[in-house]
């Protein structure tokens, strides 16, 4: 299997405070990988370091190309799209404009076709095309954030705690959509979650992040069998 994302010795933080103390992590082509961790473990910092929105050191390779010194827009062009924590939609823009902004890096003629496609996958967004994104419900905004990220035609989708603040039924729907995209389109996903049960349900492999260090990793089935992990993250 070729490695789509290969992270080695990644260090990052804010000003003088280092949050990630050198982590190694990889995502293979077509794989869903979940990173589990408590609040403050450094999950969001890791996502920001990969998408290039904070300063970082170490190595982040995308299909063999080093991106650790690249700007965020260059990383989007290289095929990485991030769904940020808290959705990060453009609340003053319409749903349609949000999706068009998602295609900002593209210059091909298939943007309209892609719009129709994602309106098909997320019919609720299609119904609210001309409404301001700020007026959508939390679940709809999360769908919009995912669809906006997909509009850049990414090879790797970064999802930062998509379940945060959503009703359980909406979360299930969202995870089913992500699993479907992975299964049908071969979309690779790096998912950060606190909802370990659900996330491990759609992922092939998982990493455990504690205070900026990877403490365990492996196939989800193996990790489920580990007593310590089960108690700490799965709660049974």
């Amino acid at each position, binding site marked *: 299997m070729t490695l789509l994302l290969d992270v080695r010795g990644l260090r990052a933080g804010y000003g003088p405070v280092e949050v990630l103390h050198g982590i190694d992590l990889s995502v293979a082509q077509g794989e869903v990988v979940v990173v589990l961790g408590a609040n403050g473990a450094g999950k969001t910092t890791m996502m920001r370091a990969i998408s290039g929105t904070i300063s970082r050191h170490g190595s982040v390779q995308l299909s063999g190309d080093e991106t650790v010194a690249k700007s965020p827009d260059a990383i989007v062009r290289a095929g990485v799209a991030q769904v940020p924590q808290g959705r*990060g939609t453009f609340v003053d823009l319409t749903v349609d404009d949000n999706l068009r902004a998602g295609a900002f890096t593209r210059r091909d003629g298939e943007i309209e076709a892609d719009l129709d496609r994602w309106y098909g996958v997320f019919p609720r967004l299609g119904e609210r095309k001309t409404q301001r994104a700020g007026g959508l419900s939390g679940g709809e905004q999360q769908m919009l954030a995912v669809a906006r990220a997909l509009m850049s035609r990414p090879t790797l989708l970064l999802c930062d705690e998509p379940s945060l603040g959503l009703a359980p039924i909406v979360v299930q729907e969202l995870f089913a959509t992500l699993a479907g995209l992975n299964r049908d389109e071969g979309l690779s996903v790096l998912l950060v979650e606190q909802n370990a049960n659900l996330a491990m349900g759609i992922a092939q492999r998982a990493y455990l992040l504690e205070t900026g260090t990877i403490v365990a990793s492996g196939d989800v089935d193996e990790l489920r069998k580990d007593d310590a992990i089960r108690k700490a993250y799965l709660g049974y």
Partner: protein
Amino acid sequence: MERFLQYFFDGLSQGSIYALIALGVVIIYRGSGHLNFAQGEMAMISAFIAWWYADLGLSPWLAVGVASVTAFVAAMGIERFIIRPIGHKSPFAVVVASIGLFLGMNALAPFAWKVTIPQAYEALFPDKATDFVRIGGAEWREQNIGVLLVLAVIAGALYLLFQRTRFGLAMRAVASNPESAPLVGIRTGQVLAVSWGLAAAVGAVGGAMVASLRGNVDASMMFTIFFAAVAAATLGGYDSLIGAVFGGITLGIFENMVAGYQPDVVGQELKGVVSLVVILAVLLVRPSGLFGTRRVERV
């Protein structure tokens, strides 16, 4: 009725000037949240540049166009090499820097062109005493109509730019959520630099309109106009382009009505106070202005 129409027409062109400067203030504010105190002085310098080009032999309108382009490029440089590096350190420092630019530019104009008294500026519109249209007994001067038309063209062009182009979408996205814009591949820095350039280019046209109406260029020509423009932007809402146009026109008309109907209480000398009263009233009653986005904080 005749008096009313006269004050209305005069206010309309004065308001168009306010709107042009307010548009510049709003374009920069939307992108970065900074109030550019130098907006008026940038327009003043640009008017000097237009005057200088015309003096070198360019036709008056071509001189305005070239001055606009010059202002666009220069302001992009100011954003890139002064505002952005300072902004990384502290947002408050940007306010201080823009006040510094205000003072610096005000001192620069007389120094750069070695002139201390107002310099004659060739009018951009017919400006003879007989160049007016009579409506309802009032005289609507052709130069006042011209200024209003210029505002309409600029506002229309900005609307198309913001609503119909890819770059306009990027500018709106940065204004709405600067943290998310890079995640879709928008270069926020580039957008901010162009915002400054655009604000300066629109300001340059505003400055030329002021010079044309006064018949001269002078270092102090934008002082009161800038503060009226800030009042107009406050009234319309700092992040709304439509608000800037509406606020500018409304303030211009209101100011002329107050000064015209209350010549003993307000009159021409105290006209500027109207802006101050408007700023205070809006901030007290509706801080987001008439068209501005009301920020909802979820806690």
